[in-house]
């Protein structure tokens, strides 16, 4: 029997298996940030031990940081203390830190790939659920809790049971105006926010293969929103070309590529569950509810108790009450107050290019606040080199500085209660972007339309 991509990587990383229990899984690369690591370092200090493999650990500050005036001290005391704790812990334990002010600083799931640290065949973890992003390179990458961060810091290993295997195949050509965010929101709307819980999810098919690395990362990023343990895509020429020449790309690149080429699911690999979707069925998507599975085409109507799937039925009224939306109403034309383009889902250079190409020569709607937050210092520098910041400026937007920003309401960038925010991030949970904030998840293109019109619109009605 053939092996799946996941199994090929997993088996190479099992140190040993405990009888009747989990496997000891070796972790190649560990990313850490300021929010979920301090208690883990405390644990090490309490045991009197040092980080076991500091060279396999990379740190950055992203969750808490402001996205304006990063050269000034962080105003909020607790945020500042957490960032200071990270600096202290990294220095004491010999861990490389790309902190505020460093040219490599940025959202942890943006900087790993862009530095070439993320590579096919690796096991990668981070105390952040969107670690699944790195799976776009054909790696096993998943989010962990702080106790597990402590395990990896102290032993470079984790105890995990092998998940079940799922494959999601998307075949065909994408419609005009449809981008990878729409693909993943569409899949979520079909299989629900818990549809992949307990599974490692491989994305495959011609529509996935046709995507750039940035676009693949958007899809794997949101595999956690389906509940997936991780999401992964077999590496190919697109992957190799992306990595080539990056800072931490393998020295003997040809040798590495030869090995990476073995990383695919064999034709007779067996999956516990498989879904097939047709790319032609996918339209620009947007969410109306309070979990990422509650999505509809921008031209669609909000489900009713009669039309909604079983999974979200019981939560529909609670969700809509929070969102201030009505059953059966169209979503197109819905007024928005804020537009947030950023987060580990959609803050890469390609996302900013997409938005810039659309807004060039247009003007921001007067009653909308627009925040564009690059994923990293490198993305910011690249955007400036390409004049993207000027395009934004002329349209009335500001390109801010890198960080998690309004994705999660723990830094200065919060959406006020009751306000609607169309957001390229990954979660529309109650209060996610700030207490009482109402989130509509969408692609960078759909967000750009809202930035210009102040409303939810259909990007296909514009010249593309």
């Amino acid at each position: 029997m053939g092996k799946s991509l996941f199994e090929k990587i997993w088996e190479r990383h099992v140190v040993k298996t405990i009888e009747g229990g989990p496997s000891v899984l070796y972790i190649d690369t560990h990313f850490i940030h300021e929010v979920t690591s301090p208690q883990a370092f405390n644990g090490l200090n309490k045991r009197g031990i040092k980080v076991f493999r500091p060279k396999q650990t990379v740190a950055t500050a992203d969750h808490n940081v402001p996205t304006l005036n990063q050269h000034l001290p962080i105003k909020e005391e607790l945020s500042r203390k957490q960032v200071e704790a990270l600096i202290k812990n990294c220095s004491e334990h010999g861990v490389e830190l790309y902190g505020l002010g460093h040219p490599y600083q940025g959202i942890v799931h943006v900087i790993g790939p862009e530095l070439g640290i993320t590579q096919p065949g690796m096991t990668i973890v981070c105390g952040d659920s969107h670690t699944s992003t790195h799976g776009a390179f054909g790696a096993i990458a998943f989010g962990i809790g702080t106790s597990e961060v402590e395990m990896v810091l102290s032993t470079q290993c984790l105890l995990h049971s092998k998940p079940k295997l799922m494959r999601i195949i998307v075949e065909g050509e994408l419609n005009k105006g449809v981008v990878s965010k729409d693909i993943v929101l569409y899949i979520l709307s079909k299989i629900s926010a818990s549809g992949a819980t307990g599974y490692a999810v491989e994305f495959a098919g011609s529509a996935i293969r046709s995507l750039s690395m940035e676009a693949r990362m958007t899809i794997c990023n949101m595999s956690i929103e389906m509940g997936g343990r991780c999401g992964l895509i077999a590496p190919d020429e697109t992957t190799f070309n992306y990595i080539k020449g990056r800072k931490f790309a393998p020295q003997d690149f040809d040798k590495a590529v030869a090995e990476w080429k073995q990383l695919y699911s064999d034709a007779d690999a067996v999956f516990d569950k498989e879904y097939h979707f047709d790319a032609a069925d996918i339209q620009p998507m947007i969410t109306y509810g309070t979990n990422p599975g509650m999505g509809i085409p921008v031209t669609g109507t909000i489900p009713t108790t009669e039309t909604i799937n079983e999974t979200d039925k019981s939560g529909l009224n609670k969700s809509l009450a929070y969102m201030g939306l009505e059953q059966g109403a169209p979503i197109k034309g819905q007024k928005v107050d804020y537009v947030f383009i950023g987060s580990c889902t959609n803050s890469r250079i390609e996302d900013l290019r997409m938005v810039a190409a659309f807004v060039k020569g247009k003007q921001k709607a007067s009653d909308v606040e627009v925040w564009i937050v690059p994923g990293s210092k490198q993305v910011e520098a690249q955007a400036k080199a390409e004049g993207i910041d000027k395009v934004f400026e002329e349209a009335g937007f500001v390109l801010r500085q890198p960080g998690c920003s309004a994705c999660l309401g723990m830094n200065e960038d919060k959406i006020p209660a009751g306000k609607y925010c169309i957001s390229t991030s990954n979660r529309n949970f109650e209060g996610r972007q700030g207490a009482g904030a109402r989130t509509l998840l969408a692609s960078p293109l759909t967000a750009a339309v809202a930035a210009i019109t102040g409303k939810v619109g259909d990007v296909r009605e514009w010249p593309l």
Partner: protein
Amino acid sequence: MAKAFTTISSRFVPLNIENVDTDQIIPARFLKATTRDGFGKNLFRDWRYENDDETKPKADFILNQPQYSGEILVAAKNFGCGSSREHAAWSIQDYGFNVVVSSFFADIFKNNALNNGVLPVTVSEPFLQNLFSLGNEATLTVNLEAQTITIDATGESESFEINAYKKTCMINGYDDIDYLLSIKEDIINYENSAP
């Protein structure tokens, strides 16, 4: 080293809401601590209080109804989805819950709970609905050794799954780090032999 876990008999708090995500359990703005202590007071913060004001509890939220109490939280399916923040498990434990019962748990939350000595008990959907239909006086017994959860008044019982390794850890209060540190030789051998 977590607290050893054996059998718990207690009343329970029914939280009949599906897809409870970790942003609800503990909103991100409370993740700024550098220790593990004191998260319980912010458990379900935005469901518990009007406008983030502790003097204005929302009367209809279950934690604000004193007739419901106990060491067991019973929640509807897909509990703990979303962010990997272990602070969710810490806040549940710090509030006083040692068991969470649901018909379905998100993966990362389940691991985080187990790593903190909070037992996630997965029951069938009918059993869960049965629990939601019981009054506030009802008590449950969770026996980790036997892997059973029982409604004390009626004796109705269901068994639950937990892997043997984790069960031993919970019963004895062992933690994974102790184990991993004990096999460091194996880890180094792996590193030396890996391709």
